[in-house]
């Protein structure tokens, strides 16, 4: 995917919200950083699971 398309794909997630040209420039520069950050984190997290919600035993309240 080209860089232009990548940004367009991300910005589409903002829905109908519109920003000024200068704001959009700042947001896309953040998005460009994010792609690099995610690549770093992907390597770092490679062999680590996601810890989903842990269930706890339920304390029964009999007779209440």
């Amino acid at each position: 995917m080209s860089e232009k398309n990548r940004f367009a794909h991300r910005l589409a997630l903002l829905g109908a919200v519109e920003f000024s040209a200068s704001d959009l420039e700042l947001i896309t520069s953040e998005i460009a950083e994010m792609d690099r950050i995610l690549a770093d984190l992907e390597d770092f997290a490679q062999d680590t699971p996601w810890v989903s919600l842990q269930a706890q035993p339920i304390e029964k309240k009999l007779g209440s």
Partner: protein
Amino acid sequence: MIHDFLGADLTDLSWLISTRELSSAEAVTAALERLRGVEPELNAFITVLDEQAHAAAKAADDEIARGQRRGPLHGVPITIKDMFATAGVRTTGASKILLDWVPDFDAHVVERLHTAGAIIIGKTNLDEFGHGGTSTLSHFGPVHNPWNTERIAGGSSGGSAAAVAARIGPLSYGTETGSSVRRPASYCGVVGFKPTFGIISRYGSFRGAWSQDHVGIFARSVKDIALGLDATAGYDGRDPSSVQQDSPSYASHLDGNIKGLRVAVPRPFLEGTDSAVKEAFDAALKTLAEAGCVIEDLDIPELSYAAMTSMMTSAAESAGINRRWFRERHQDFVPHVARGLAFGMTITASEYLTVQRARHRIRQALRQAYEKIDLIVSPTTPRVAPPISEGVKGNGDDTRHVSYNHSNLLRFPSMLGLPGCSVPCGMSPDKMPMGMQLIGAWFADQTVLNTALAYQSRTDWHRQKPAVDR
């Protein structure tokens, strides 16, 4: 005469009120006068509760006269961040979006404070909904630092830190998602404590990021922090992250005995720390060693990913929290906050999970480290409060790179839910306070407080008075 007690800590003020040498009405009147006197310089408050505070003080005096004293906070004037819902009192989150919102319920913290008989005299200024580290991103304008009003107070709980530093009550409650209690505490020369995740319920406070938000406490003394914690800690089923726990009694277990405690310094992350801060921190380490701690250097390479992991988690969760307002009223957010939410909105679910896997790896590394140590200590911030004119970049945060930068040390405690305390540890050549943070293992809150007390009992940095107080 009436103002002589303004610098008193909670313990002393409480004693004066309990013995009726001072009435709650007098204490509240003086605190409100003090607030009015310095507020034009600080802009630390969004709402002042004159009428309610005077009425509550009268009720407290009546109860105490009847021998019905509720405890150490009874009749004492305190403040809270305008993140907490207050029944019948507007609650803004420093946002234009909720400019006139008056909740019909109290946040958990507010309920507990009312039960304890504390008198809430004002709601403090902050970065909008807690999104920031400067307290300049407020619809109500920036908070100014009491030590130098050209400097920031730090954020997002800057109004609370500034209020305690300026002697507007001995205690204030804030919140922390990244470093929003410890950083402003360090910049304003007060103690700032955030407990283990789940110790204080967040019910009724605005959310910055569900999995990182904490309630925190500001005071000038560690003992006051412990009293403030006792008043608000405890299980609350309305906060799904609240933990089952015994009745809190942190204050009664404060003993300052830290002999043999293993204290680790993440030395590689201190590169780039200002020389004055480094000097103050080294002196603080010496004090801890004299008190009996065993100091050692420690490297946890996984921490070099902490700042970016915390930032990405916050960005995604805050976008999720504010999704509707962002879509319907994005123009009403402070522009910098709106751009941050936009960034968060573009993070996908699978990317968020990648970030959470990274977070778990860091958690595991810390878990292993705490098997061999009791505390991690470092300067709270690598430099003193920057000028307001430098804007949000003044803090010098780096949450974008894998590196040994200090931002990792600021962000990992909230990201992992560890208890942390910043205590004043020195004064820079330009008369700005500096802080040392003490970070314990999960549920080692008492160890953190004991160590902070031991340090404070051997130093007097917390007794220094800011410029606005002279």
